[in-house]
């Protein structure tokens, strides 16, 4: 994948190409979902 995020916990998350091709709004939504996942994992 050509775009990836370094999450606050240091995890590197690649962004799927079909998300990237939709543009910044889709990428922001994907990132927000990843943050929600981390929050849920942190509370487990």
């Amino acid at each position, binding site marked *: *994948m*050509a775009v*990836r995020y370094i999450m*606050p916990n240091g995890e590197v998350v690649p962004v799927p190409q079909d998300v990237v091709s939709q*543009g910044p709004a889709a*990428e922001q939504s994907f990132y927000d979902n990843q943050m929600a996942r981390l929050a849920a994992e942190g509370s487990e």
Partner: protein
Amino acid sequence: MSAPKTRNKWGFGAKIESTYGTVNAPTATDGVLTLEVPEVDQPQFLNDGDRGVTPGGASRPGVNQSGRWGGVRVSSEWIGGGAAYSASVKPHLDVLKRICGLEATGSFTGGSENWKYAPEAGPASLESATVDAYVGGQLYRLTGCYGTFEITCDGPGVPRWDFDIVGIADVVTDAAILAFSNYPAINNPPPKAENIALTIGTFTGGKVRSFHFVEGREKDQARADLNGVSNQHAGFTPGSRSPTLEVVLERTTLATVAPWHTATTLNPYRLAEDRAASFICSLNVGSVQYKRFKLWSGPIAAAAAQAQLLDVQDTNEGPTKTWTLTIGFRPSTYLAEDEFAIVGD
């Protein structure tokens, strides 16, 4: 009487493709602000249909042209997000850098948000884009676009980013310029090359006249496809890269011992000859967070001693003696793709 087509107004958009060569038409939020009218070289053909001459000394009628492709060159400026970077706030040239073989890594820790770009392994991970150039009332669309870029700064001004892009060409059509809505705010100016802190190893005392970074990525290997139904051009395969930074600066006192650089002295002749010790090479353009950019040798984590001086030329600027240095960027291992990084922070 109809009005003529003019070059007074133009538009340029680029959108990353999900699958190579599959059109992903740029919308009003995919504009790229360019310095001048895109320089379009389209259409071109793998086969122009010429058939040579006749026994009578005339030219034979040609057959149809096949394998339609094209190129476009645009010049632009680095304009940062102007606000804290996020998944949806990026430097303005994000898409064009990514189709030049750079991967983008975003990190959004509060107060230090950034986007960093570094060479990416291919071919599966390489990104392509559909690129639309609106010139003279006509739309020139390219799909499966790859490119390469240069950064040129000839004085204490705004560095110019030049992109050379090739792709599979659509037929040219009449089209009104799309009303791009994502251009940077007009009060978000590009950074200028002032106080650039050029670093060559430990040498920081240079009086720098200019710099010119060339990514040097090969991108022109065409893929002919005789099975193609409507177009016998299947796109391009990028090749290797050879990033270099050419710097013109005033000559200084020569450093007399290895590693041939101190804070105020430099010996480019010995540094180019003795390639044993690589050095850090870096520069910054702009100082305002979320507007500036940085270029350094090494991975995105931090600048590293991965630059080598490839060549030194004795040059002059009027009566002033200068050096023109050509600095190369090298990976940390034989498998790494970390020879340089461009950072927007």
